[in-house]
């Protein structure tokens, strides 16, 4: 063993490379404003999750109370009631879970197909410039609020709305969409497609354009058709992106698009069975201030969403990491 061992450069002293305390202090001062906002709007509400196990009762703070704020004081003073809040929710649970998870799964599956489809089509088009125009238009609904969509929907499906006008001129009776349940799953699906297809396709399009052109050339020389190139070159390379986005979506499977589910039905009571997701339910509960312990019930719904969502994202990520490490989120 006469070979000389290659000299490995010594690692720099960790602390020397990090500069003095002055530099660290400067960095810390930079994060402070953000930390304050995160504490206020993300971390402060977190302990409130214990509401789920409390029988909330408004209790006025006294001189000796730890918190002088009515809500905080009530939160502490209210008695624990185990899982009673959850059992109260049980009767509505099947409907709520069916709506929330059902719509989310539907949106996920249809969404992925359409978004990937749109991205691939735009990427393959011969006329690049018009393709760009199409994409600009398809992306636009992302910037239109759900409240404006609610207005547009009203203009289309209200009693004197566009669809009924067309129906009348074809000799049909006008349809009362706002009181007939069977239309609403489709309305939500279409609204979701309308709003998110263009936006969702952007990530796929950006990923697609980064693929190595040589793979496609090689494929085409070997006689692969465009469809085969999509199936065997594009799709496998796109998979990590698709999986990553789906992990995120799974984590939110118990959170609906509150603005959409809350606003589009225009407050129609007869549609509740098909339009109430957990978010909407929690909000309705919350607003029933007069009902005793409505905060507790609403809190149970919110707890379910947060905790189960959190666990789901960890589990999905764990499974993905085990099988396909580079597809995992973290």
């Amino acid at each position, binding site marked *: 063993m006469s070979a000389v061992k290659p000299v490995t450069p010594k690692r720099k002293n960790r602390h020397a490379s990090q500069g003095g305390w002055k*530099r*660290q202090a*400067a*960095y810390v001062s*930079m994060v402070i*404003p*953000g930390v304050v*906002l995160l504490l206020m709007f*993300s971390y402060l*509400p977190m*302990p*409130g*999750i214990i509401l789920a196990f409390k029988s909330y009762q408004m209790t006025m703070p006294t001189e000796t109370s730890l918190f002088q704020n009515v*809500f905080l004081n009530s939160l502490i003073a209210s008695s624990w009631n185990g899982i009673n809040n959850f059992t109260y929710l049980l009767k509505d649970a099947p409907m709520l879970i069916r709506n929330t998870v059902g719509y989310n799964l539907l949106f996920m599956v249809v969404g992925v197909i359409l978004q990937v489809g749109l991205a691939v*089509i*735009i990427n*393959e*088009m*011969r006329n690049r410039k018009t*393709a760009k125009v*199409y994409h600009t*238009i*398809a*992306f636009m609904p*992302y*910037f*239109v*609020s*759900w*409240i*404006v*969509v*609610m*207005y547009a929907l009203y*203009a*289309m499906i209200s009693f*004197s*709305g*566009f669809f*009924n*006008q067309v129906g009348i001129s074809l000799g049909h009776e006008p349809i009362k969409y706002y009181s007939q349940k069977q239309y609403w799953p489709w309305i939500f699906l279409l609204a979701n497609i*309308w709003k998110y297809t263009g*936006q969702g396709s952007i*990530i796929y399009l*950006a990923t697609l354009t980064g693929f190595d052109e040589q793979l496609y*050339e090689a494929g085409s020389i070997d006689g692969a058709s*465009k469809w085969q190139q999509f199936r065997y070159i594009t799709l496998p390379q796109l998979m990590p*992106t698709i999986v*990553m986005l789906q992990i995120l979506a799974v*984590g939110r499977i118990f959170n609906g698009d509150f603005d959409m589910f809350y*606003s589009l039905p225009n*407050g129609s009571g007869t549609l509740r069975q098909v339009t109430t997701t957990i*978010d909407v339910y*929690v909000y309705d*509960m919350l607003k029933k201030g007069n009902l005793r312990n409505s905060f507790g019930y609403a809190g149970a719904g*919110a707890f379910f969403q*947060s905790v189960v969502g*959190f666990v789901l*994202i960890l589990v999905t990520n764990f499974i993905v990491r085990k099988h396909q490490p580079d597809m995992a*989120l973290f």
Partner: protein
Amino acid sequence: MSTLDKKEARRLLKAEKQAEKHSLARNLISRRTNLFFNILLIIFCILIVFPLWIIAISSITSETALTTYGYRLWPMEFSVNAYTYLFRDGSIMITAYKNTIIATLTGTVLSVVTVGLYSYALSRPDFRFRKFFTFFSFFTMLFGGGMVSYYNMTRSVLGLKDTVWALFLPMSFSAYWVIIMRTFYQSSVPEAIIESARIDGSGEWRTLLQIVCPLAIPGFATVGLFSAIGIWNDFRNCLLINDSAKFFNLQYTIYQTMNNLRFLKENASRMGGVNVANLPAETFRMAMAVVTVGPIIMAYPFFQKYFVKGLTVGAVKG
């Protein structure tokens, strides 16, 4: 001899070019498929524009035509009455517009500053608590306290109820933008510049403000635009936190208008006295929706590239 070589070389070059052209041509979709895709996308785009078209058209239809003929593709009778009525003195829309504009401007500046600072620190490899603060913001993407707690904390504990603050403060910082901005610093501000500024004796703050900021403007634009859209389109925070009409933003104001009208219509017979014909008319409501979404649709194509950047950068793992 040499001319023959040249000829041969030229022939080979030509053949090569042709082969290349051929292979490229073969690797494009056929003209027929292209035509099919074009038709498909034109239909798709028409469907995208259609709902907005209906709103816009009905807002410039006269009220009588709308009640008689319903919503149509083209007005039976033009009228801009709805718009003049919309911006009369003391209209709720003027308050809503004012609140929304104040909130959007303040909130956008606030997000650019806070996100810009936070993510700069996270982008520095020599920041000792980098891991901690990265997790501190990332965790908020995974877990939240839920709506009930949020409702009570913002209203009562933070005291935001019935303030303009409620319309932008909760939306001015997001872990998602931190990821975007951090990636932006890492990819477009060369380490050497920061290093040389340091050697020249510049402190961290000065380096950031004088050297890094000018380079990071497209990143700031991305964060600022996302923030502006979020605040302009916010409905949920106003719904949860503000109760007084003085502090409503645009989205919530037009939501309320639609909601109140439905309530009155449903109960008109029971209440007897209310004359439905005197209520804010349908054209008026559609005009409200138009002025709410109008500025965004007008501005969006100019800023599209920033939004695209923001959405794609955020997808990069980090």
